[in-house]
């Protein structure tokens, strides 16, 4: 089957799903969404996979629009990579959403939800397979509006908050779309048509100002959807307000489209010729990463933590892409390829583990009724499978081996180190600082997700005794299992993923990354490619040949090679790591169970609590307490104000209550939104002085306008 056929199958499945949904009753909506959504997702994933694997895309002109362009569908490797990832994410997300439709959270709105969700799938793929700017923007708009409607579709809880968050999503989304559209139009100023091929060739002729204009407009325009600082204010609120069934799709699939837009325009259509644009992207990415993770670490609402963490991960992706743009502009195609593959890999990884975490949070919220980590705790006893899947997601997002987050973060940080090969001192300094920032982000991410997992699942149960907490249904568990397995697979099989992404990488950087990253240790000596024999021999001694003949592919070692003087910067193999880890665990278990405890009994006792008569849940660390050191260290960013009220006392000696509240405004709000808002209000107030009501002055305005127009007309 060709990619085109599969894409058409996808659209057919979506259409069929919408039709069935309109026709059937509310009880069958779950089935429709489940079956047809999965079918559609599989078709999309297959389309992307086929296109990537066989490096075959398609270009399909549809209808010509007079004077403008011909509407075109096209699938090139870059879009195929996104399509594959989206399809694989939408599969478990559909299963989970189908399960949720049977629950309480969407009662009465099942049909609307199913129709909108399937339409959203269609719009996502439309954006990815759009071959010209018009279709692209059309798909983008539909996707934006559907996101807004789906966010509003939840029920129960804070309806006012939800409406406000949805409106903010829509407003900022539209502003972003406008900026992006302007950027594309700027790019198309001298182009004969609006299809991507024409835009690409027109792009080569643009001057410096126009390039900067396109970059800034599309970077921040698409950056709204991606969640880059400083245009991210909508993200944490919308993700928190989105209904449980939709949040995974929002975080796993639509977020990527913003990054797709950025990459499409700034790496593919208009490849970087100045290093500075890449440096801007790098810096903005690092800033987003840091700010995102800081707010994630200090937040207590599970969904908001994940939203801030999305900002962080998007920042890492953009930083990688920015590094790629710098390397491409300074004519280091091999390094650019490494950077772009790191960015793409991280983006794909993020889709999977973020979706997994959102489904996990949805399960926790359904069972326990709250998302506040300060009120959760001890859930691992009641929902061990969910806890395990959530743990996989948490370890992945924290970037620990052998899961996928480790590979892509490692690749990104290694890319930063390669700045040694740049010639400009300024660029090197920026790379070093951003590399340090990203390393700090990685460390904070570990803190954040240790807190998330520990406060929700471990420790003493803080929930009401009466609340029954059980494992969620099969739909949730199976979707989490699929995602967890994918996370593990992407973690231990990087040597297969990188070659698969080669077509996309070469489209962006000019050359694939497999040669640089995945040396073919498994190949017989005469086919070794670019590896010097001494080098191969050294690695042979280290065991890089283990698995030859048994495992397919080029090898299991990911290598980061330096120049002549320093052939190997770093080498790692997550598959071997997993094997060794599993072996050590098994060995330890055997030693302890069989040998050490042979002559002894194992006794199980109460936890030690200092000799208290009873340890109470309020005597255990809360999430706020756990992250307090981070709050204190980074006080300059958070700038909280504490309001304390100690007046509730008797006779000035017996205190009844000390009420304290900590208020803080998000740093983006303080530094960008509030000044902008104050400026806007200031200007408006200034202009409002014109509206004083005096007719004589109004007549004078008209006269003045007439004079100006006449003057311009004469000149």
């Amino acid at each position, binding site marked *: 089957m060709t990619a085109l056929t599969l894409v058409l199958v996808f659209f057919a499945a979506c259409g069929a799903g919408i039709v069935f949904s309109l026709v059937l009753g509310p009880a069958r909506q779950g089935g429709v969404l489940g079956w047809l959504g999965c079918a559609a997702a599989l078709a999309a994933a297959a389309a992307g996979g086929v296109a990537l694997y066989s490096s075959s895309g398609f270009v399909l002109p549809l209808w010509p629009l007079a004077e403008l362009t011909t509407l075109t569908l096209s699938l090139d490797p870059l879009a195929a990579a996104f399509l594959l990832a989206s399809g694989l994410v939408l599969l478990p997300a559909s299963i989970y959403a189908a399960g949720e439709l049977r629950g309480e959270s969407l009662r009465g709105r099942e049909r609307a939800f199913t129709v909108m969700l399937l339409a959203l799938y269609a719009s996502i793929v439309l954006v990815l397979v759009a071959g010209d700017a018009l279709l692209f923007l059309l798909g983008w708009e539909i996707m934006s509006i559907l996101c807004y409607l789906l966010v509003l579709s939840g029920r129960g809880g804070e309806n006012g908050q939800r409406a406000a968050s949805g409106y903010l999503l829509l407003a900022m989304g539209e502003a972003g779309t406008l900026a992006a559209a302007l950027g594309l139009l700027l790019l198309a100023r001298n182009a004969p048509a609006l299809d991507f091929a024409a835009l690409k060739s027109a792009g080569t002729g643009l001057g410096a100002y126009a390039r900067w204009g396109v970059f800034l407009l599309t970077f921040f325009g698409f950056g709204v959807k991606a969640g880059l600082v400083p245009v991210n204010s909508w993200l944490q609120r919308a993700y928190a307000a989105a209904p449980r069934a939709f949040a995974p799709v929002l975080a796993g699939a639509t977020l990527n489209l913003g990054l797709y837009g950025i990459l499409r325009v700034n790496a593919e259509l208009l490849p970087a010729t100045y290093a500075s644009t890449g440096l801007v992207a790098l810096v903005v990415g690092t800033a987003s990463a840091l700010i995102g993770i800081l707010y994630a670490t200090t937040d207590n609402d599970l969904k908001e933590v994940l939203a801030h963490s999305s900002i962080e991960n998007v920042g890492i992706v953009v930083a990688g892409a920015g590094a790629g743009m710098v390397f491409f502009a300074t004519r280091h195609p091999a390094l650019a390829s490494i950077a772009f593959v790191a960015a793409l890999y991280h983006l794909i990884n993020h889709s999977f583990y973020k979706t997994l975490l959102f489904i996990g949070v949805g399960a926790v919220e359904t069972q326990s009724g709250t998302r506040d980590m300060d009120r959760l705790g001890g859930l691992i006893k009641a929902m061990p499978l969910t806890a395990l899947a959530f743990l996989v997601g948490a370890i992945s997002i924290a970037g620990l081996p052998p899961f996928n987050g480790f590979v892509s973060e490692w690749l990104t940080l290694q890319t930063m180190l390669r700045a040694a090969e740049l010639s400009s001192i300024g660029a090197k300094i920026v790379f070093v600082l951003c590399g340090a920032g990203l390393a700090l982000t990685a460390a904070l991410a570990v803190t954040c997700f240790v807190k998330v997992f520990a406060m929700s699942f471990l420790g003493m149960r803080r929930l009401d005794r009466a609340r029954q907490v059980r494992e969620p249904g099969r739909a949730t568990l199976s979707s989490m299992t699929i995602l967890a397995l994918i996370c593990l697979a992407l973690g231990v099989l990087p040597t297969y993923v990188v070659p698969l992404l080669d077509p996309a990488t070469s489209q962006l950087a000019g050359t694939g990354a497999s040669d640089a990253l995945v040396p073919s240790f498994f190949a017989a000596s005469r086919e070794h490619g670019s590896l010097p024999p001494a080098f191969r021999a050294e690695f042979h001694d280290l065991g890089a040949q283990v698995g030859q003949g048994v495992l397919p592919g080029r090898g299991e070692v990911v290598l980061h090679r330096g120049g002549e003087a320093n052939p190997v910067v770093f080498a790692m193999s997550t598959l071997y790591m997993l094997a060794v880890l599993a072996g050590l665990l098994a060995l330890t278990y055997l030693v302890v169970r069989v040998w050490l405890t042979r002559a002894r009994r194992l*006794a199980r*006792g*109460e936890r*030690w*609590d200092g*000799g*208290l*008569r009873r340890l109470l849940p309020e005597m255990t660390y809360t999430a706020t307490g756990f992250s307090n050191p981070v709050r204190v260290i980074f006080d300059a960013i958070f700038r909280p104000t504490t309001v304390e009220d100690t007046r509730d006392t008797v006779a000035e000696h017996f205190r009844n209550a000390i009420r304290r509240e900590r208020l803080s405004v998000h740093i983006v709000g303080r530094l960008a939104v509030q000044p902008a808002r104050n400026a806007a209000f200031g200007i408006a107030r200034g202009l409002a002085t014109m509206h004083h009501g005096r007719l004589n002055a109004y007549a004078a305005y008209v006269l003045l306008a007439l004079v100006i127009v006449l003057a311009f007309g004469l000149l």
Partner: protein
Amino acid sequence: MSQWVIRGLRSGIVTTAYPRSAETAAGVTPGLPVGGELGAQAAALVQRCPVHALQEAGGRVSVDYRRCVHCFRCARGVDSALAWQQSYEWGSRGEAAPQDSLGDPFRRSAHILVVDAGDCGACLNEVKQLNNPYYNMHRLGFFITPTPRHADVLLVVGPVTDHMRVALKKIYDAMPTPKRVVAVGACALTGGVFADSFVSAGGVHQVLPVDVEVPGNPPPPLAILHGLLVAVGRKPAASSTSVHAAAGRP
């Protein structure tokens, strides 16, 4: 900071030679009374003891060390006084001691958990002196640990007040085997002067199985050290009564 290094070095070594050889400095122990033949005054002398630590049989006075609260009324203000010996090796086996001493590998390395079950402060203060340069229990491999999970020896002081019963039991249960209990001080052995209080259990043996008992009020650090050495098997246990006692407990 260097001032401290120099000052410390200049102080030299003042650590006692015990247990290798006896410690003879003055003031290291209050001593214990020695029983003896007192003839006619024996009965009157026995009455003077406020905690019934003295027993009389045919003019011969014997002492139950576990009860002595060091009031000195058998030695002061009385015509025929009981003799006192300046000993300190007082650690004896608990009555219902079910276990031997710890033995290897604890002989040279034992972790001790100190629990205050209502003591007056003096026993605890003597335990604190074990870490000072004069006694330096670290050289004998004894270390104080704050958590029962790492403890081998539980050292209890105080008569076990009612409010500390639950805590003491929890502490004992939280210790992994092998473990030994050392009760230090007259209060921990018999309740001391607080034995009749309704909120005192009357001794650690009412709550936990006690392996080693160290009498005294308070026992000096050397006596506590001896008790610990008995618990790990480096010293033989002493008798808890004076040599003039009849066979078995008086």
